[in-house]
């Protein structure tokens, strides 16, 4: 090991320099972690037990924020909205992205055009896409009602109708599936050709090869994207603030929007901190469940 020995003084000096430089080069992260992550998290924890409206000094109120939060119907409404949104949109998005990736993995003419076209929604800034969809869903002059009209479906109220607002948001989210598609495309390149050929020799048809070779090999990628996607979608904010302001009847009041409101519109910073801890715990819980459950259906090559 690298312990200093008296026989090799130069080695020890070199080693000491390496340790010093190691800390020095890593210091941006160590300082940044303490100042911009650890310190705010501790503050958020303290805030949870305080009443604080920025005008008067903070006051300790024990567990009142937590009790209020648990008794607040809007907490559970926003939690339900968030769960609904994330749990429906992520699997649909991944399924569509996977399907497109499998299609684009075939030698088709115009593959590059399709790939670019399907990817392009990703580069539309979130604010701009909110502008577009806010109007695309307009009952009278939006393109969505126009297009469903081609199939004889009557115009809908979309963002003005509590039952349809969340599905409208989900559709808008699925529209941006290019990132996942590109990830899956890269993953499909790694499916060993030899395995597919071996399966073909054993008489497997295209369908069997897909389900018994391609899908098992892709499960780690799918699984990773499921976790990242759900964590990401739990934090949906900008579209709800811009398009519906949480309405109609709180149907699109997502957790982060409710936290934002409490902190920056109602000036209830302690309450907002309590809500953000609730969301945080929920995200951690989900991550743990997903990692535990993954053992059963995720295939890792090293196993």
């Amino acid at each position, binding site marked *: 090991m690298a312990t200093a020995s008296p026989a090799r003084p130069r080695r020890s000096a070199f080693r000491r320099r390496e*340790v010093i430089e190691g800390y020095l080069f890593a210091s941006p992260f160590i300082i940044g972690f303490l100042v911009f992550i650890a310190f705010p998290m501790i503050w958020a924890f303290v805030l949870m037990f305080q009443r604080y409206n920025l005008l008067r000094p903070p006051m300790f109120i024990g567990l009142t924020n937590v009790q209020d939060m648990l008794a607040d119907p809007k907490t559970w409404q926003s939690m339900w909205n968030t769960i609904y949104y994330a749990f429906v949109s992520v699997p649909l998005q991944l399924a569509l992205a996977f399907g497109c990736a499998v299609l684009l993995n075939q030698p088709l003419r115009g593959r590059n055009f399709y790939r670019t076209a399907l990817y392009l929604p990703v580069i539309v800034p979130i604010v701009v896409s909110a502008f577009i969809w806010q109007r695309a869903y307009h009952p009278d002059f939006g393109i969505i009602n126009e297009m469903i009209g081609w199939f004889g479906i009557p115009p809908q109220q979309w963002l003005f109708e509590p039952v349809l607002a969340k599905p409208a948001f989900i559709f808008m989210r699925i529209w941006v599936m290019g990132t996942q598609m590109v990830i899956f495309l890269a993953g499909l390149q790694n499916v060993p050709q030899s395995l597919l050929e071996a399966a073909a020799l054993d008489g497997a048809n295209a369908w069997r090869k897909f389900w018994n070779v391609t899908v098992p090999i892709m499960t780690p990628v799918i699984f990773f994207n499921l976790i990242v996607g759900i964590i990401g979608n739990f934090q949906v904010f900008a579209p709800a603030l811009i398009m519906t302001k949480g309405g109609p009847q709180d149907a699109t009041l997502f957790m982060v929007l409710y936290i934002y409101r409490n902190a920056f519109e109602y000036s209830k910073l302690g309450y907002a901190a309590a809500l953000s801890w609730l969301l945080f715990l929920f995200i951690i819980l989900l991550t743990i469940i997903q990692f535990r459950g993954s053992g059963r259906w995720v295939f890792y090559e090293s196993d």
Partner: protein
Amino acid sequence: MQQTIDPAVIEQVQRHAAAQKRRRQAVDAFMRVLAHVVLLLLSFMALIPAIWMISSSLKAPTEIFVTPIKWIPDRPQWSNYPRAFELAPLWLYFANTMIVCVIAVIGTTLSSCLVAYSFSRLRWPGRNFFFGLLLTTMMLPAIILIVPRFLMFSYVFVWPFKWIGTFLPLVVPTFFAVQGLYVFLLRQFFLGIPVELEDAARIDGASTFRILWQIFIPLSKPVLITVVILTFIQFYNEFLEALIYLKPATWTLAVGIRALNDAAYATSWEIIFATGTFMLAPLVILFFAAQRYFVEGIALTGFGGR
């Protein structure tokens, strides 16, 4: 054991095989057509919202509020764009956005390179602990930090002036490698660089900083470009933090045009669509100029801005 085979049987077998091959080809052709139909429909759905925005940004109001929808304006109303610039200081927002993006890109790449080098090549006690910490922060939802960071920048970081309202709360953290993803990405790449290169330079008396600057950074160009693009897009898009920290004079495009949208939602669609097109255009240009790095970056990270 010799057996003569009836030519009629051979012919029958060959006919059967040929028929099977024809059927397989027909199925293949059908599947290919089906794939094209599906992909064309999906491509249409992917492109049509943005195309509708761009075409509507050139319409007269009378062409927007009609049913059925008018897809192409009769006479493009280019004057919608100057009108949008009159209603909101879009060039100011654009300049602010560029300042934030450029500083954030510099901060992220510089600090991530230093930290990634330390995590990949230098051995020091506690390295694994801190690397584990870095990986944990990648999973940390940003929302938990929003409220306390707002308070921190309002009441703790008040020197030499109040940080709230300036770009500092947005860009200063980027100099401290708090985005684990980019550090992780660079570290993985650095690990693949041969140790021999480094040893040779060390024997020649190069300092660690010089090794990083003259060997690691030039060799990591593709990953660095990816980090630059992802960071740029992230800050171009940044909404929640920009909304909380900035004031009208320092607003970026994302928060600036959102305020305009709030004011003019019901009436001036063409103006809003013009501002939206204005904000979209730089990213479209960037995408077609650096398409390779977009795709590589996503495949490398498993992320892609969002």
